[in-house]
């Protein structure tokens, strides 16, 4: 683990400038990283502005059910004659919002609990880690299946909240382990010796050292959340929304026979490709982040 950045003779603004120029350098070094950033920006744009590009009620062509790909419909049409690309774009907001909310809750809760337990140790540590262990032993999917019978998860925030509350255990355990290791280091001892407040030690000494790990976990939580919610919708246990990616997969396979005949194949491929692209973007950006936060990799 690297030592935290020591402020010596430079203002915070300079540091920030240096950081961003470092980021830019790291991104430029490999075109794939730039591609990752472009993909993520593309998805962010799709989530924010995508639904605005289409009318509230997507048009249907009654005579073109499961139409093959064409210029008009790059991914064909669905069982009702609606453009599949339009469904993927309009459905992205729910998927991405859920993923973001899940990631934020996972990381904030996991980091806070891990840091607190690791730094305070003793009874707090024991209590929090037992709770974490208990949480880790609860199988998420069966619990979600049961929950879905009583809770309809109508908004993306509700879905994200549940996935986030089910997903923080691993992050908490890992952050605690790192905290236990870092708190014994000389620079933390020195900070303590200088009488710096706990908030400073945690916020300025410990947290920056774990920032890369936390940031990467956040991105990985995004992919986990996408898989989880699409999986639940695919299983048909969550409310029906024709433009939900998981619902699209479900209907293409079970209603359209996408795994048996080619007619519904584009209908299935479109949401799959979207998930694949999003995952690829995240993986490429995580690769860049690894180097940004790890000076040893940068030197190489």
């Amino acid at each position, binding site marked *: 683990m690297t030592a935290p950045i020591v402020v010596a003779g430079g203002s915070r603004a300079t540091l920030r400038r240096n950081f961003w120029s470092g980021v830019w350098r790291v991104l430029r070094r490999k075109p794939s990283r730039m591609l990752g950033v472009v993909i993520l920006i593309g998805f962010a744009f799709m989530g924010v502005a995508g639904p605005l590009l289409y009318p509230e009620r997507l048009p249907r062509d009654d005579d073109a059910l*499961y139409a093959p790909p064409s210029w008009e419909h790059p991914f064909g049409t669905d069982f009702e004659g609606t453009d599949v690309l339009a469904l993927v774009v309009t459905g992205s907001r729910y998927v991405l919002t859920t993923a973001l909310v899940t990631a934020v809750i996972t990381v904030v809760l996991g980091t806070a609990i891990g840091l607190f337990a690791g730094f305070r140790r003793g009874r707090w540590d024991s209590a929090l880690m037992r709770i974490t262990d208990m949480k880790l032993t609860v199988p998420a999917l069966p619990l979600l299946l049961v929950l879905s*019978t009583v809770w309809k998860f109508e908004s993306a925030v509700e879905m994200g909240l549940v996935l986030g509350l089910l997903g923080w255990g691993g992050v908490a355990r890992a952050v605690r382990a790192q905290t236990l290791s870092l708190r014994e280091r000389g620079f933390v001892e020195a900070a303590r010796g200088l009488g710096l407040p706990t908030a400073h030690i945690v916020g300025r000494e410990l947290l920056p050292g774990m920032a890369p790990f936390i940031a990467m976990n956040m991105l990985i939580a995004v992919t986990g959340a996408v898989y989880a919610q699409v999986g639940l919708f695919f299983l*048909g246990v969550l*409310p*029906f929304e*024709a433009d939900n990616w998981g619902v699209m997969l479900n209907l293409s396979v*079970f*209603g359209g*026979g996408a795994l048996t*005949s080619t007619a519904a194949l584009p209908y299935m491929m479109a949401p799959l490709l979207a998930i694949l692209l999003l995952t690829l973007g995240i993986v490429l950006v995580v690769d860049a982040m690894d180097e940004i936060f790890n000076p040893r990799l940068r030197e190489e």
Partner: protein
Amino acid sequence: MKRLAAVAALLSLAAVTACSSGNTPGKSSGGSGGGGVYTTIDGLRPGIDANAPINPFNPKGNAFRGYNSMWLAWTKNHLTDPNQFYPGIAESWEIAPDQSSITLRLQPGNKWSDGKPVTAEDVKVSIGLAYTQGGTAYALDPAAAGTASDIEVIDDKTIKITQSAENPSVTFVRGVMETIIVPAHVWGSLLPADFWDKLKTARGDGAQAEAARAEITGLAEKVISFAPAKDVSAGPFTLERVNPGEALLVKNRHFHNAANVAPDQVKLLHYAGNEQIWNYLIAGRLDNAPFTAVPAEVMKRIVRTPGNEVVKGYSPVGNALAFNQSRKPYDNVHVRRALAYLIDREQVTKVASPEGGIASVTTSGMHQKAAAEWLGDAFTTLEPYKADPAKAEEELKAAGMRKEGGKWAMPDGSPWKMTIHVPAPFSDWLAGAKSVASQLGDAGIEAEVVTTADYPLYLEELAAGKYDTGFWLVALGPAPYNIYQRLYGTPNGWQLFGGKLKHVAPGKEGNWMGGPETVEVDGEKINPGELAVKLNSAPEAEQKEIIGTLAKAANQDLPVIQMWDYVNTQFVNTSRFTGFPQAESDALRLTSGVWIQLGMIKKK
């Protein structure tokens, strides 16, 4: 569970009933075939459970109807008469003209697979076991309709079953014929020595009767979990082995018609979803697949396989959008009619069930084929509710609904959002409901589809009145009594207790449809629930009249809007075997096992 399971599960509801006439069964004959493995799936259950007992009373049991599990007789798929049968364990039967009793003669020379003869005593023990499970002809409640009151073994091969005179019903004959027959020398020990005395007591009144009833129903679990060490079958096959992938049955040499049973073996393949069946069919592995819903493109792919053919027949089931009339604005008949005029049923069927259904001609409460048969020309006089936005607008205005900014709102100006409920696993219902919602959206009615995780939960919530509207199976025939129970029975408030009919308030005791107790038909007030119950015992001529009135009531009052009528779409492969039932055959709703035991199937 996918579409197949949806329909299979629901077809099984196509309960027992009857109306007229006896039967003069003829024993099938045919040239002797021989050899070969006949491969199919069991459409009556989703998949095979290798650990389940060889027990026909167990829902997962490895006893397969028509193969190693037998009924007294096999119900023909008749448009109007549910009392026509093919012989099973019984070779022939005589039904008393008033259906007060049925005398069955068993197949002469029929033996169990262990060599012991099949006797009337086996039938009696099987009836005793049926009482532990309850059932149409074997209810312990003496006031229940169409139950057996006396079972008399006349000789080794003849048994007479008498119907209780307290509340006779046309359901009795079919209830008896669909009795599962098991060997007394294997199953007899499950019944206590004083069982028949207890049964007599149970069919009386008072505390003693209550105790006896509790004791008999207490045996149910013991019967369901009973696991014979080996299969002793009176059917054309016995179970040889079962693993998670398939069940293998071999020919029962002691079966009375063994000479005409063509295959030496039958393989029933496991499946977890329709996609697996499609793949089996595309690979040409199945000699027959019972009703399986298929998308149009998959259908094309299946029929390209050499030998594969599609056989279509009558399926007495329809799908409808049902209303909860205790919720506004669905209590208003003009709103229901407006919705009927707005929904293009052809389009809904094209989207939802292009191969397994035909758009309903109108709403009559019956499948269009049965309706045409029962009603004749009167069927064409019913309002067809063809898509007509102008008429819909008139109806909505008549209901006091308001159109603001291109969207319809409630009479007080509050927003109207229609929720259409469907169980999530039924992809055809889901697609159909989405198509309805889209069409209503085009007309300015905000509508959304809401799914429920599984079918049992869906039925529970539906019965509890939690939904405004939802998809619902109707026309469950062939008996008219059963058909109209779907519209004017318990779900709509009419309950039959001890032969007495009562109407309960909407939202109570399973009355989720919440329709009025009386409706006006041709200027006359009728009680549809009362008429529907009369179908249970009325002679055929009167039934016809009642059906005419109920069809009009359903058509005018629209407790539901019929969407599509199912078509029994089956697949056969003629590469290895021939003689399969033709389109519209009355054997199409029976399993391949029945076709084989009747000697219809021949080795190619």
